[in-house]
């Protein structure tokens, strides 16, 4: 299968990339890892007239923590970099749990977190993780940089508020005020399949008390779903059988699953509850 014909540019700086992108108008796309875009172009679901390949732009492959605790993930940081990151295993339990579950090992060596968030696939895992953590993306364009919370960034399936001449240069995870806990669980038929159901839970704890909670759901609606009521129900609480059951029920209510070849709507909603319960039980110290 071939993509339809397009022009290709591989700029060597961000400024050059933005100028090139602007010249391409509405029919240009940014190519980073290409693990979603190239398959979509081969299937002719996407037919950009211009591809702006940013893989030769230096200095975008980082993930690092600022002195204030903000985590920054550059546009060319690959899933595999995050999977092997000791920084994540020591400071970001939700992200560390998700990284090895993205696609398969070979796709992970090319694909990027930022690209996954920008692709805005309702079955994309990273968008849920970043949403649960209250994260943002930083978009750079001819008018400068702007920071967009992921909650406002994704507007629908494969749709974001990104302007055609903007490039997302990094994702930001805000610092935690307490000790982080949480995780990511994904139900998939086999390695590399899209999520039947994915659940991201990000907690900040002060002792046994939850000071901040974020819960987000993958693959059970038209876009990534923030289960805000479920998260609110945990804030200020300790993790007990009762609070966990409450949060799991509310998260299940927030899901908008559809019956398809991966399972019935009822089954998927049940799995949302199960995954929320499982992650919270582990965070609370019981299994």
């Amino acid at each position, binding site marked *: 299968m071939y993509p339809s014909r*397009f022009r*290709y540019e591989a700029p060597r700086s961000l400024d050059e990339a933005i100028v090139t992108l602007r010249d391409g108008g509405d029919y240009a796309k940014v190519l980073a890892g290409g693990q979603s875009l190239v*398959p979509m172009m081969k299937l002719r679901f996407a037919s950009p007239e211009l*591809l702006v390949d940013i*893989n030769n732009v230096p200095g975008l492959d980082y993930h690092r923590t600022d002195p204030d605790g903000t985590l920054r993930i550059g546009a060319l940081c690959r899933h595999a970099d995050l999977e092997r990151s000791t920084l994540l295993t020591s400071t970001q339990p939700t992200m560390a749990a998700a990284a090895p579950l993205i696609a398969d090992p070979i*796709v992970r*060596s090319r694909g990027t977190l930022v690209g996954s968030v920008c692709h805005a696939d309702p079955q994309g895992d990273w968008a849920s993780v970043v949403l649960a953590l209250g994260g943002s993306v930083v978009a750079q364009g001819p008018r400068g940089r702007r920071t967009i919370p992921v909650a406002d960034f994704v507007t629908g399936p494969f749709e974001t508020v990104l302007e055609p001449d903007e490039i997302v240069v990094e994702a930001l995870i805000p610092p935690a005020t307490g000790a982080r806990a949480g995780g990511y669980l994904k139900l998939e038929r086999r390695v*590399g399949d899209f999520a039947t159901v994915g659940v991201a839970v990000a907690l900040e704890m002060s002792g046994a008390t939850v000071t901040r909670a974020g819960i987000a759901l993958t693959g059970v609606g038209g876009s990534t779903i923030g289960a805000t009521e479920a998260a609110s129900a945990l804030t200020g609480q300790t993790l007990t059988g009762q609070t966990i059951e409450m949060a799991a029920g509310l998260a299940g209510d927030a899901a908008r699953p559809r019956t398809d070849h991966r399972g019935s709507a009822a089954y998927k909603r049940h799995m949302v509850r199960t995954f929320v319960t499982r992650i919270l039980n582990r965070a609370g110290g019981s299994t």
Partner: protein
Amino acid sequence: MTMVYEDPGDEATDVPMRRIKFTVNGQKKIAEVEPRLLLSHLIRRGLGLTGTHMGCDTTNCGACTVLVDGRPVKSCTMLAVQVDGRVISTVEGLATASELHPLQEGFKEEHGLQCGFCTPGMMMAAKALLDENPDPSEEDVRWALSGNLCRCTGYQNIVKSVLWAADKLRAEG
């Protein structure tokens, strides 16, 4: 090398060719490619290295796995134009003129293939693993090969083959 393209028959939509330079299995190459040419097609048709197999063409099966700058990629999901300035390794680069690579020996010794279609991709994914982790556990091997599908073997002997190769490579130092 010669790649032949359809002529759109329209001056305005002339094929936007790019010249790229790259290294494949230690040899430097120059190619003229249309940007939409996939890396897998550059390797198979342009270079004639047909050891890299096209299975699913949808980023699932991993039969087309090659190494680009040492990292495994599904070559059906990368554009040929993107390897400009980069180093590609394919299955043909594993053996020397007189000697099989320990991975190839391992697949022979442990009966790691039946039809053989997935084998080149398995070997290249395994090469990426062993380059990074010379002493993998069985679990490590299974994890590293989880993006490569085999419909014959049930994977048991493939995993044994890779562990065999790891032992041999470590023994050779």
